[in-house]
């Protein structure tokens, strides 16, 4: 080893550490980086997380019933407020997947090239991609916790919650995984110039048809739409939340878990493969 006397002892030349140790500490440090960034930008995190659900719940479950323009008839206003709670939770998590994973990745691949440095961290590049998903799950869960009180308190008509903790504590992380993995897949596919397209072609249909405003089973009378919406991962997330926090009708739990695991796995595989393809030539 060459002379390093001029440098403090913490700076002894790096020797390769065992893989598992190096990977773990790098993974945790990358997560710590995301936590630091969210903490620095907590105001914008709160605003971006709360604004949409707040307006949604306010207009649909406060304004509409008050002005006698209830959705599904004023008589069903309670029921609507209740089923919307689940939809708002799913939506909040889905948007975190876009905002916390997809959009930053589009930036980092496109303009800032920051990703170039993070892929040089001492762990496999696939784990850098997975770390983005984990970070998105954490932010999605925080978003869900923030949004929940709004969905329960703002409506003018009573919300009837019935929480099944076992379901909630399994559905929520799975939903976070689906959304973040989707974020990874989208963030590694769309160049910065096509972000508006991402919203109009992917995010809008996904959210409007994602069983946010209606239980999936109610689509029975429009059979073709009911079948098409099975391709929307948000449907399974929202139906899962519906089963977790309300007694409104919901999809079979087999379909809920199966659908979420299927889409989460699919998006993870696609996202990680895209990620690797973009950073290694």
């Amino acid at each position, binding site marked *: *080893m*060459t*002379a*390093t006397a*001029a*440098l*403090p002892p*913490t*700076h*002894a*030349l*790096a*020797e*390769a*550490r065992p*893989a598992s*140790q*190096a*990977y773990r*500490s*790098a993974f945790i*440090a*990358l997560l*710590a*980086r995301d936590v*630091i*960034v969210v903490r*620095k*930008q907590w105001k914008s995190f709160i605003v971006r997380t709360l604004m949409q659900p707040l307006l949604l719940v306010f207009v649909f479950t406060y304004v509409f019933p008050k002005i006698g323009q209830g959705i599904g008839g004023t008589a069903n206003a309670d029921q609507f407020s209740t089923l919307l709670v689940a939809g708002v939770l799913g939506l909040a998590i889905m948007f975190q997947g876009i905002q916390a994973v997809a959009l930053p990745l589009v930036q980092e691949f496109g303009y*800032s*090239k*920051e*990703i*170039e*440095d*993070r*892929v*040089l*961290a*001492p*762990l*496999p590049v696939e784990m850098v991609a997975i770390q983005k998903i984990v970070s998105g799950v954490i932010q999605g869960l925080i978003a869900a916790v923030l949004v929940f009180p709004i969905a329960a308190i703002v409506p003018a008509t009573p919300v009837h919650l019935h929480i099944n903790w076992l379901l909630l504590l399994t559905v929520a992380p799975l939903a976070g995984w689906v959304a973040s993995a989707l974020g990874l897949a989208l963030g590694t596919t769309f160049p910065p110039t096509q972000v508006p397209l991402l919203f109009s072609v992917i995010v809008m249909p996904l959210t409007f048809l994602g069983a946010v405003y209606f239980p999936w089973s109610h689509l029975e009378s429009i059979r073709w739409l009911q079948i098409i919406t099975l391709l929307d991962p948000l449907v399974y997330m929202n139906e899962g939340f519906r089963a977790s926090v309300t007694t409104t009708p919901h999809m079979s739990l087999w379909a809920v878990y199966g659908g979420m695991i299927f889409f989460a796995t699919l998006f993870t595989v696609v996202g990680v493969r895209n990620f690797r393809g973009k*950073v*290694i*030539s």
Partner: protein
Amino acid sequence: MADDIIRTEGLSKVFPGGRPVGGRPASPEVVAVDNLDLTVRRGEIYGLLGPNGAGKSTTIGMLTTRVTPTSGQAYIGGVDVVAKPAIAKQVIGVVPQTNTLDRALTVVENLELHGRYFGMRPAAARVAAFEMLERVRLADRAGAPVASLSGGMAQRLMVARAIMHRPQMLFLDEPTAGLDPQSRIALWEILQEFHADGQTILLTTHYMEEADQLCSRVAIMDHGRILALDTPAGLKRSVGADTIVRVSADGGNLDVLAAHLVDAVAEATSAKVIDGAVQLDTHKTAGLLPRIIDASEQVGYQVTDLSVTEPTLETVFINLTGKELRE
């Protein structure tokens, strides 16, 4: 050899050709790096000098795990870079061509987090980050957002970041491209300080002054191959002349003039036409220039300009490839 820190054997990268798109024909495959055997010794500054497209960045890309070689092997500090890229990343530091600083973090946080990626504890990373800022003269900018840094400062911060975890090998890809002369010199000084502390460095450049001033050894690269490798002084000696005279002249074919001058001027060792002028490799003697003018006029040429320089790495490159570095 135990003192070799980088060793490559037959390292090659062929980028596949593009498939035909619309009316455009298929693009041919590109051999970016061609069977490269490269050895970097511990403690040296090794320079890859060559024009754009010579394969320098692809070489760095392969050594830093970002480009998968088509064939061949590469070892850094005994770690097989191709087979174990995630392990190899522990012992290298990289300053890429573009600014890849973390915009969401401050100057000091960029270093701190980087240290933590490489396994430093938070407190130790913070201490080391401030020390490193002192060394790259950015201590007064610790809390600033990185977006506020000038190009030269950002580059110094990237060097500090790359070196935070004391890599066995520091890679810099065109480190001073686009920097103003002052920032370039400041960066050279910092690299020389780290080198004095024992840091081994591999850099690519297309500035011959940079290769000349900074590097212990320089490999001249073109079309994916190393054409010559020596100390800057050794490379310049290889020209076999101590004086380079560029002769601009009117009156006919310059190739004919070049051939005539090598015969007519006793000290001249070789001559060729480069970029619209005759380059005469020669030895300094009294009355050299008048004799060149006379010899030119004898065969009907009017000398319009004469310039005299010592051989540079540019001369070496020209002699090896018949073209200038900056094309």
